[in-house]
């Protein structure tokens, strides 16, 4: 990415692009922490921690708005072309995925502190374990996706796309465990519905990380792969790394 933000004859252009890049990375760090905090709050039942996630959601939204504005200004002022144009469009798209990851963190926090301010039921140890496990997985994907973005590393991006399949499998496995518990004791059904929502949020975090990884392929190769089949991308990625 530094390659993309450097080398313009007009130095101010480098500065503008570097600003966008930095904004994306800062925002990425913030939402990573939001998801981590929300899951910690859920597992430990820490209401104060959950509330801090809800408060900081405004910061995430502010980043979203600011980077969007900066992108629009940059397009208007510099008329970017080629890789610059692709970088700006990719950053703008990645930012909107990060914003939605922020929303998922908020939903998880709401499983601890309800909208009406009342405390929700304590999650089962099994859910806490599953949520932690899926969060670790999804956040790693997000971290690697952002890293691939920053280094413009198409190979690493394809790896993130591939890992989303694994996360989906983890999600299905967790659902089966929840279902077994409910079959044993139907009174757990309301709590299970909350639990499904939490796990689904984490599964969505992985989807957004995968989207960000797909933007990397657009950034590097100029190819829009948002709707391309994951299996095809992985096979292509394997072929390319074998060639190199």
């Amino acid at each position, binding site marked *: 990415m530094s390659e993309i933000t450097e*080398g*313009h*004859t*007009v130095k101010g*252009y480098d500065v503008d692009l570097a600003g966008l890049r930095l904004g994306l990375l800062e925002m990425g760090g913030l939402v990573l922490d939001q998801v981590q905090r929300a899951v910690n709050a859920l597992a430990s039942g820490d209401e104060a921690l959950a509330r801090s996630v809800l408060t900081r959601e405004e910061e995430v939204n502010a980043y979203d708005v600011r980077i969007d504005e900066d992108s629009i200004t940059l397009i208007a002022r510099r*008329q*970017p*072309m*080629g*890789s*610059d*144009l*692709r970088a700006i469009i990719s950053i703008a798209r990645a930012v909107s995925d990060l914003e939605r990851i922020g929303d998922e963190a908020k939903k998880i926090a709401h499983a601890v502190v309800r909208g009406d301010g009342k405390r929700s039921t304590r999650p089962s140890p099994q859910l806490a374990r599953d949520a932690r496990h899926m969060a670790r997985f999804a956040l790693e994907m997000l971290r690697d996706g952002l890293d691939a973005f920053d280094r413009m590393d198409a190979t690493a991006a394809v790896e993130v796309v591939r890992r989303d399949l694994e996360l989906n499998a983890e999600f299905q496995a967790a659902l089966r465990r929840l279902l077994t518990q409910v079959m044993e004791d139907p009174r757990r059904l309301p709590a299970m519905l909350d639990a499904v929502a939490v796990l689904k949020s984490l599964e969505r975090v992985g989807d957004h990380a995968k989207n960000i990884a797909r933007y990397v392929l657009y950034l590097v190769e*100029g190819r829009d792969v948002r709707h391309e089949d994951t299996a095809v991308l992985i096979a292509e990625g394997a072929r390319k790394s074998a060639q190199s």
Partner: protein
Amino acid sequence: MNNAVAEEKTAPSTEAGVNVKPSHRQPGGVDLTPQDRRTVGTVTVDNAIMSARDVNVYYGDKHAIKSVNLDIARNQVIAMIGPSGCGKSTFLRCLNRMNDTIESARMTGVITMDGSDIYDRRQDVVQLRARVGMVFQKPNPFPKSIYENVAYGPRIHGLASDRAELDDIVQTSLLRAGLWEEVKDRLTNSGTSLSGGQQQRLCIARTIAVNPEVILMDEPCSALDPIATARIEDLIDELRASYAICIVTHSMQQAARVSQRTAYFHLGDLIEVGETDRIFTNPRHKLTEDYITGRFG
């Protein structure tokens, strides 16, 4: 735009090829390999009106154009872009043999129009320049009336048999150039009394009047303000229905706006050619990428 104008003021001698750099050196001093210099993209088209094959141009011992192959398609605008001294204007001027007028210029290779060699000994150059018209950077109307500016070409080419027919050609040409409404009540006024943008449209009307098939434009908007530029660009888009248009421009934004195909020249080599939509979003050659993103020395 400002950049383009400023650059152009210092550049004309370079553009005419007098100051072309001798080797395949980038401004950074890195030599280009033969691989770097091979044209990326498809140089041929299905509906070519003109074809250039292995065209080389020398100004004295300066090698200004190096083995360029390129087709010009009918009903399409092709933009030639590249840094000053890259040979884009020189190449444009080959297409209607304007380089013949430069003593030291020498050309090898073949350029055909509808299959026949335009450099053939039997080719009437005046006739060729009627078929391949040219619009220059600075509007250059004759110091005559608006009417005479347009009527001159058809008259010397014998395109009108009487005054009524000539009137008709003048009116049609001015209409097509989008100038008629502004000048219809003052056709006897001097062409030079018009504004810069109007003068340029008058020059386009003058070119159209002799029924060309190809129109070459060498930086047609660099002396114009943004509104006049927009009118010319709009006109180019309309003219595309009837003519093949080749435009040399320093403004990449203009190339992106008006053309369907773009050719990038660099130190006399045709580096990349392709659909404009692709060239400006995802160029394949590093040199094209560096140029369009403003990373070029």
